[in-house]
């Protein structure tokens, strides 16, 4: 094999999450109430557009979660050796973007570096030519604008063709069926594919979003950041959910000293201001990771461990709210007839909690899951700025903003890293917010009135 698959812990958890979602949606198809609620989401045009955008982000994030180590060149017959560097399927797709690094900053679509440098055979300091950006133009730079225009047009045409082909495929696959939902998805895919087309076509010859301090392509960095944002947004909720659900139901159903103890636990934890608790826990976790270098084989694994620990810590601070909600709802459910009937039939407490209480709380769990997502993505950037976020080597929106911030004082300003990070983040969070609203409206029994 020319590569060795690597499964990082976060990858494994992400795949578990996907499996759970697929399993749950298969189960939900058979439940009338759930199918009805999801049908309401599907009828909401804004929600479907947001879901399409989210799906594109998730697809990029998933591609970025298939990790491998490339095989190194070695004589035939020798035992295979693999590179230390851990790459992902997305890296393989974007090899061009990843490998064409410049020396330092360059503006979007530029042909020259951003800073003057003393050239070898001249006494003046000039803007050196980029190695890759606009290399096809030759030295005279003839037709820079024309080249960009041609590439944009070609990209638009390519995107349009791709969209038409896709539509044709879908049309033949689902003749007759498909209502507003599919039409909305199609209309959302058009601008996305156009943007992709333009980005691919321009990216072949230029750095679409410029390059950063060490000359890396900013578009590549932005695409890589998506996985980190998605992981923080989903895994945090995933790791805290079991504890929050179990404790919330237990406190509400059992009552007595169990209730007191659990309430005490979450009141204590929630009375510590979130950022400070996170900061303290991350500082301590850093000490653990730094004093045990032997636990991690590669630097990717160490960064991954830190990402997971951050999710755990964020989860530790956010489970209290969900637990409180679930406890309150359980208190209400406990007094309802169907639970009392079950008690009268002699069903055990555990069975009641699992079979009668838990299914009636799922809408709260789902709503809090989607509502928390966007807040967590935003929190990641802030935490990385404060210095308690992801590992500095992990590419994320936070680390991008943090490094770009240093250059704001420069004249003229280096703005493209910031703008790229903020616009990717805005798109992701806006889509998540819109989708979350639709899910809440569809699942919250109070909102149907």
């Amino acid at each position, binding site marked *: 094999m020319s590569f060795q698959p690597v499964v990082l812990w976060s990858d494994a958890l992400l795949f578990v999450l996907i499996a759970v979602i697929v399993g749950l949606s298969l189960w939900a198809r058979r439940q009338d109430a759930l199918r009805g609620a999801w049908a309401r989401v599907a009828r909401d045009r804004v929600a479907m557009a947001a879901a399409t955008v989210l799906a594109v982000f998730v697809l990029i994030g998933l591609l970025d979660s298939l990790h491998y180590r490339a095989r190194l060149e070695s004589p035939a017959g020798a035992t295979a050796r693999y590179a230390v560097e851990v790459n992902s399927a997305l890296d393989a797709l974007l090899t061009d973007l990843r490998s064409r690094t410049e020396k330092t900053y360059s503006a979007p679509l530029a042909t020259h570096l951003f800073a003057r440098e003393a050239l070898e055979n001249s006494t003046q300091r000039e803007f050196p030519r980029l190695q890759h950006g606009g290399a096809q133009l030759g030295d005279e730079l003839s037709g820079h604008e024309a080249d960009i225009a041609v590439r944009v047009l070609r990209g638009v045409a390519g995107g349009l063709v791709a969209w038409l082909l896709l539509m044709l495929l879908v049309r033949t696959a689902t003749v007759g069926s498909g209502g507003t939902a599919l039409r909305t998805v199609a209309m959302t895919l058009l601008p996305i594919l156009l943007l992709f087309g333009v980005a691919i076509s321009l990216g072949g010859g230029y750095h679409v979003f410029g390059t950063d301090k060490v000359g890396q392509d900013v578009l590549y960095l932005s695409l890589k950041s998506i996985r980190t944002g998605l992981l923080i947004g989903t895994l945090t909720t995933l790791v805290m959910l079991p504890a929050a659900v179990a404790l919330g139901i237990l406190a509400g159903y059992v009552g007595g000293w169990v209730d007191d103890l659990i309430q*005490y636990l979450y*009141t*204590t*934890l929630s*009375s*510590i*201001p979130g*950022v*400070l*608790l996170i*900061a*303290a*826990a991350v*500082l*301590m976790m*850093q*000490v*653990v990771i*730094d*004093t045990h270098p032997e636990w991690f084989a590669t630097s990717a694994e160490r960064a991954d461990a830190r990402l997971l620990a951050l999710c755990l810590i964020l989860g530790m601070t956010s489970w209290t709210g969900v637990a409180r909600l679930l406890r309150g709802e359980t208190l209400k459910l406990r007094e309802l007839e169907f639970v009392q009937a079950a008690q009268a039939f002699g069903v055990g407490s555990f069975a009641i909690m699992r079979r009668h209480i838990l299914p009636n709380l799922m809408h709260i769990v789902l709503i809090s899951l989607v509502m928390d997502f*966007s807040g967590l993505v*935003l929190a990641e*950037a*802030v935490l990385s*700025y*404060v*210095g*308690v976020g992801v590992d500095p080597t992990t590419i994320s*929106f936070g680390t991008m*903003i943090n490094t770009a*911030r240093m250059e*704001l004082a420069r004249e003229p*300003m280096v703005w493209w890293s*910031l703008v790229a990070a*903020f616009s990717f*983040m*805005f798109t992701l*969070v*806006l889509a998540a*917010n*819109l989708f979350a*609203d639709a899910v809440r409206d569809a699942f919250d029994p109070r909102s149907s009135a």
Partner: protein
Amino acid sequence: MLAYIVRRLLYAIPILIGVNLFTFALFFVVNTPDDMARMQLGVKRVTAEAIQKWKAERGYDKPLVWNAAAAGSAALTDTIFFSKSVRMFAGDFGRADDGRDIAREIRDRMGPSLAIALPTFVLGLFVAISFALLLVFFRATALDFSGVVLCVAMMSISGLFYIIGGQWLVSKVWHLVPISGYSGGLDAAKFLILPVLIGVIGGIGSSARWYRTIFLEEIGRDYVRTARAKGLPERVVLFRHVLRNALIPILTGVVVVIPTLFMGSLLTESFFGVPGLGSYTIDAINAQDFAVVRSMVFIGSVLYIVGLLLTDLSYTLADPRVRLQ
């Protein structure tokens, strides 16, 4: 009422003890002081003496909870737990890594933090509630819809963007106010305007939308229909009836924040170079000054618990039907 306050204060004690034990476990049990010393000194300079010196400087060279070598009550008091954690209840936070007294530093820095946080809070509350009332007044019209869209868009923007963008536009392009800095007295105004403004704008999106939901919930109630039926203009219905009845859910979310205003805002203060508690915390995090972070965690929890108590008391002011016993 007084009995209620006293009882609530008594309830706070076990929670504070819990917070204290939790921070102690987090800072001294998860990692031994030796680990912290090794981390701070860096790999190159680690020797047994250096670690001992680092620990002795900070008073971390004692046993954790039980000093077997000491006699009498000193067995309990001459320990890390007593000197670092229990002493916090008395307001003694020890010294930071730079040798300064943390309690004194906190007192000095509270002023600048409040100078930003208080106007941001008051103005933000006023603007968000007014905006929400405006949207409710024009509910189910195009104005309401575009207002909600604006709110969702604004809450999807990172807080960092508001700060960086605001600094760039107002200070760098328009040259209206200095980018960052702080000074005492009336002079402070020119440094405070921008952070306060940014804080208010950054918060409008989520809070205005939240208030709008609360108001809309109230507006469906019977008393509103009665008020309209007796011929009150919509303006009076909104301001006199809906706003007052919506106070309880609003107070729940708002009052608890007031005491924590003392802590300042981490982001705003560090971007604008304000010497408040927020930037103090950030500096401590970056310098890995464990003593300061530990103290801030404790103070933050104390203020939060005070906030919860104030919330309950504020209910009695807002709603005469609420009796605390």
